[in-house]
């Protein structure tokens, strides 16, 4: 099932041609009809219906609702949202009811959007398949025996299944782009700091960003335009582009695009290579100046990521102490026993794994050799991105080395699972924006093409992404 472009839905609601209550019912029905994919943890039915009713009443009274009037959406379950629990797909947050909403949700609601459900994820966003969810694994909409990618797998599957016109995700090492690639959606990862993370369950704070998963680039633009900009509740936020994020599509003629050598090397599935090369040929035919470009430190990105990310995870997850909120072991006799048992029962295996790796690399005696060294290699990576963007407008490569893998294929080997992110993590380390666009299929499974731009060039990236999307369609 497909939805019209978000801007069209909103203007029809504003004009009284579509009713918000009908849109919400349509989304809820789609969610019920597609339950077998397990993309959704919970619906926010009561609050969604109430908001839809209020919005229709505003329209009837002649009031202007906003640019997302009556548009249903789905939030990854690590966003604090009223009307349902916020669990981050973890046992330790089961039963947690948000006492306030994330800034992202507040901004969407202020423009008239309606959250209808919370999407599944790898618990605390730790993973690339949703198999690390403490609750259940989401199935890929194209092939239910395969994973949807992760960690925003529920959001990507929901978008492709047409459960709502768009979904929100978060991307720490590829968690928006990878599932977009595996499911065949558009996944947008903005410049670090462009969207507030206030009220989003933290994973690795020097890497985490919020972004949309949509059916088309123009929808991602509108959502970004509503969300982007500083927020006093998140001091890492940066100023929005004065021109906004709704650019006209730009011609590829004269645009210099660098194909990343390191992403086209060994380990790339043949079908992904073929689809990527076919996509690149289309861009060349449309007038883009395609060059090959090497960023020699890129293969180190994953090692840097798997030091910095667990380090920050171990720090961020230390707040789950069983005392203030979340699961707390009721039988413990003293404080230490309470910590140990709460965290033993509340955290899944991957959270424990990352907390322990993070604890190790931050511990006295190892800090310089691991954490500080990784931060310094990060500097080198950033310098290589900067040098590349002296030569080209955009960088390009596949989003992932493979198409969606089978459920269970990597679940016994965490390192193999980590390698899924090999082409996405460097973007987070450098804080630059990137978009994953559908780029054909390999054996019937979607392939994603990743377009990367310099920091704060989100507007230019989206303008070009519109053209590329059309060429690849």
């Amino acid at each position, binding site marked *: 099932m497909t939805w019209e472009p978000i801007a069209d839905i909103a203007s029809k609601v504003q004009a009284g041609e579509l009713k918000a209550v009908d849109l919400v019912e349509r989304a809820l029905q789609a969610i019920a009809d597609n339950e077998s994919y397990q993309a959704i943890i919970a619906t926010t039915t009561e609050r969604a219906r109430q908001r839809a009713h209020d919005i229709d009443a505003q329209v009837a009274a002649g009031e202007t609702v906003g640019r997302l009037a009556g548009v249903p959406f789905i939030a990854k379950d690590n966003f604090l949202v009223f009307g349902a629990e916020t669990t981050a797909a973890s046992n330790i947050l089961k039963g947690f009811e948000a006492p306030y909403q994330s800034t992202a949700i507040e901004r969407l609601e202020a423009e008239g959007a309606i959250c209808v459900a919370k999407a599944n994820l790898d618990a605390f966003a730790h993973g690339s398949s949703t198999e690390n969810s403490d609750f259940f694994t989401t199935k890929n909409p194209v092939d239910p025996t395969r994973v949807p990618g992760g960690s925003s797998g529920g959001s990507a599957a929901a978008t492709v299944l047409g459960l709502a016109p768009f979904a929100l995700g978060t991307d720490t090492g590829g968690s928006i782009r990878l599932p977009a690639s595996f499911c065949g959606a558009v996944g947008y990862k903005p410049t670090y700091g462009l969207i507030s993370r206030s009220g989003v369950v933290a994973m690795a704070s020097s890497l985490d960003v919020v972004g949309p998963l949509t059916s088309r680039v123009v929808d991602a633009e509108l959502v970004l335009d509503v969300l982007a900009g500083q927020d006093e509740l998140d001091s890492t936020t940066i100023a929005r582009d004065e021109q906004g994020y709704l650019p006209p599509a730009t011609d590829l003629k004269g645009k210099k695009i660098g194909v990343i050598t390191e992403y086209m090397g060994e380990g790339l599935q043949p079908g992904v290579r073929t689809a990527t090369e076919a996509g690149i040929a289309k861009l060349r035919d449309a007038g883009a100046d395609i060059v090959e470009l090497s960023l020699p430190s890129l293969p180190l990105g994953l*090692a840097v990521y798997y030091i910095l990310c667990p380090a920050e995870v171990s720090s961020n997850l230390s707040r789950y102490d069983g005392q203030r909120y979340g699961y707390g072991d*009721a039988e413990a006799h003293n*404080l230490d026993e309470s910590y140990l048992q709460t965290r033993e029962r509340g955290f899944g295996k991957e959270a424990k*794994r990352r907390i*322990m790796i993070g604890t190790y690399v931050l511990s006295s005696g190892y800090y310089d050799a691991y954490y500080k060294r990784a931060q310094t*290699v990060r500097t080198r990576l950033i310098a290589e991105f900067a040098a590349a963007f002296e030569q080209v407008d955009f960088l390009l490569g596949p989003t992932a080395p493979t198409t969606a893998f089978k459920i269970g294929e990597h679940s016994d080997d965490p390192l193999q699972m980590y390698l899924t992110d090999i082409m996405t993590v460097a973007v987070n380390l450098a804080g630059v924006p990137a978009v994953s666009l559908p780029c054909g299929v390999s054996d019937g499974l979607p392939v994603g093409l990743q377009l990367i731009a310099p920091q704060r060039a989100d507007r230019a990236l989206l303008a070009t992404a519109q053209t590329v999307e059309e060429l690849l369609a």
Partner: protein
Amino acid sequence: MTKLTRDDVLKLAQLARISLHDDEVAEFTDELSAILQYVEQLSSVNLDGLQPTNQVTGLTNVMRDDVVKDYGYAPLELLKNAPRTQDNQIKVHRMIG
């Protein structure tokens, strides 16, 4: 090459305040060793003249006025998520012997 021992893993678990079952200790000993061996490829990278990156967009200290703002949160609503409460306060285990 780093190879963690069973005792290393037990010590890490204690530092991180996670109790582990015996089978988990064995499993984590192997898995964490493999992950650490993978990330050790960074040890041979030449980093002369480079400083660590702490913040990617170049922001430094972001200051605000130190004033109380009313966000409308009701104290009792905030307490609802606490595992144990008494007299509208969070109840914790004794911290000092």
